[in-house]
């Protein structure tokens, strides 16, 4: 199981992609760990849907402030220069294109860039959508961060999503334990393969159309 990226590798890989000065929203779960991997010398403005602009590093244990939490209701900190807004202003920022990047988890991504990440059909209960639909509708770049296959080994990069959609043609790039995949013109362009992952590994674990381009050379060298 040493093939491909660990969760920490993946978070670091996404963090590395985000340029200095960007405004970034981190979705619940794995994406929230990205805040730990910002390269030295780079300043990123982290936004949280509940009205924080300027989240800082994880709090020192015992120093958590109950009124400073992220979208997952986990304690966070504020940078000097943070701003608080109410939920409508927070989503004004999201929908009006002020988020350079939204990083979310995913259940399925289609080669058209559709994302499904809020509901598994057939599960009991009403489900919950939170802010995901607004984030994918509003952010300039939508990054999906997920395992390349589901727990049964079935592909999650698909020709068409079978789960209820979060957004249509909204995904920019998918980061998985297998590599980095740009979503363009109805196919995934393979930008990078994780260490130990071969072209064949990716082909075997992917249903969607793939375009290896220069990554094929890199992977085979």
């Amino acid at each position, binding site marked *: 199981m040493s093939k491909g990226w660990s969760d920490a590798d993946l978070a670091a890989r996404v963090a590395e992609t985000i340029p200095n000065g960007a405004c970034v929203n981190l979705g619940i779960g794995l994406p929230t760990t990205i805040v730990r991997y910002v390269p030295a010398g780079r300043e990123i403005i982290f936004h949280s849907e*509940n009205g924080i602009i300027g989240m800082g590093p994880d709090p020192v244990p015992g120093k958590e402030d109950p009124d400073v*939490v992220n979208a997952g209701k986990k304690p966070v900190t504020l940078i000097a220069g943070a701003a608080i807004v*109410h939920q409508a202003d927070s*989503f004004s920022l*999201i929908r009006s294109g002020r988020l350079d990047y939204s990083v979310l988890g995913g259940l399925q991504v289609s080669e058209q860039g559709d994302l499904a990440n809020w509901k598994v059909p057939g599960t009991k*209960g009403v489900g919950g959508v939170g802010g995901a639909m*607004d984030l994918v*509708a509003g952010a300039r770049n939508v990054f999906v961060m997920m395992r390349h296959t589901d727990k049964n080994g079935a592909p999650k990069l698909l020709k068409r999503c079978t789960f209820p959609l979060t957004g249509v043609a909204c995904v920019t790039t998918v980061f998985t334990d297998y590599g980095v995949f740009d979503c363009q013109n109805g196919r995934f362009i393979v930008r990078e393969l994780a260490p130990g992952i071969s072209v064949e590994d990716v082909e075997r674990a992917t249903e969607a159309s793939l375009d290896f381009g220069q990554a094929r050379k890199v992977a085979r060298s």
Partner: protein
Amino acid sequence: MLNKRVDALSRALSVVKSGDTILVGGFGDIGVPLQLVHALAELDVRDLTLVSNNAGTGEIGLSRLFKNRQVSRVIASFPTQAGADHFKAAYERGEVQVELVPQGTLAERLRAGGSGVAAFFTPTAYGTELANGKEVRMIDGRGYVYERAIVGDVALVKARLADRYGNLRYRLASRNFNPLMAMAARHTIAEVTQIVDAGVIDPDDVHTPGVFVDQVVECGA
């Protein structure tokens, strides 16, 4: 002299009637007016429509309204968060209808309700099942969903400071939905940590002007 202070929670809540639409501030359990909600759970009012981002966790807050079978309808973005067992049980008993709304759309519908704007077109949820049955419109080549304002009978909000005019100031990320709930209801009751003299809150520092607030109850932290 104008004074919106009310000494007893129960007296403030005497405006609530069975069948009312109740707007409750908070995100998860942060910024929820717990004492008002707990006092509401003691009253013989039922068939409530509850509008709030979440639906309570554990044994406190909104959970009590579900446990007591006071709620017949929920409008929320994420009612199913971990620990929302009383909501889930009420839903499984078939007692509660749920209208699931993307979080930004929920915030915007409340702001519209508090702004005399009857409806608006948002890009969020276009092409997803949460837009099923809704009017859609192409505007400048992009798909938008028609969404109606939400207006409540009574809002329950939590703030840090208030004065006798009902001016409110929130603390950090406990602001979240509270200003929107205060705007969107015909009658707004604020549970506040402290009531200060008029003028202590600088005019530039008021988060919710008192004109949106009808009653203020001082409850400590």
